[in-house]
């Protein structure tokens, strides 16, 4: 069934991002010039925003139906409160690293990316949970 297949794809994608398995080599001729930290951070910022935005919108539109999953409501509230700050912090640290590529700045950027990946993982987990045929 396409529904399960697509949700499964979403879950696999989240797992790949969260596990760092997306680290294919960059063609150095590309805009990142081989800098995987920049690429990974931008990919994580893009993808986590899309998924978290989808999650909070989905939770809002289906709050009544999701009442039987109180953990989903709590997670949506937490992400509404915290995600914007994580997103903005990741962009700021991305810019700092891009301007000054030290190990310290890279570590700070990767820590911020880790938060985005956790948010992505959480949102994906809840959407896949609700798509399961039985609970």
């Amino acid at each position, binding site marked *: 069934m396409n*529904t399960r297949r697509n949700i499964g794809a979403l879950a696999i*994608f989240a797992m790949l991002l969260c596990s760092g398995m997306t680290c*294919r080599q960059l*063609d150095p001729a590309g805009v*990142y010039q081989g800098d995987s930290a920049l690429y990974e951070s931008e990919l994580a910022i893009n993808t986590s925003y899309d998924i978290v*935005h989808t999650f909070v919108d989905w939770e809002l539109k289906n709050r009544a139906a999701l009442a039987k999953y109180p953990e989903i409501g709590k997670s949506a*509230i*937490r992400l*509404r*409160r915290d995600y914007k700050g994580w997103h903005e912090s990741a962009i700021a640290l991305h810019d700092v690293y891009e301007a000054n590529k030290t190990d310290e700045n890279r570590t700070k950027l990767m820590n911020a990316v880790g938060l985005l990946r956790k948010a992505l993982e959480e949102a994906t987990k809840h959407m896949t949970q609700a798509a399961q045929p039985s609970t």
Partner: protein
Amino acid sequence: MLALLPALNAALALAEELMPIVQQQIKAGMISPEEQQKVRDKFNSLRQAAAFEGPEWEVPPEAPGSPS
């Protein structure tokens, strides 16, 4: 569950959008300049226009389970 299926449309649309990315991530080989440019373009548009203003981002006033 049946009541929730229609509600998953947004998630499914996103999953369909992400499927090519999943396939790209799974297959071996280098990330091409074109793929890199797509990520950069999306990032640039997001940093200029990421919206956190809609009703979907509003914390319900009677929010249960206040953060600890």
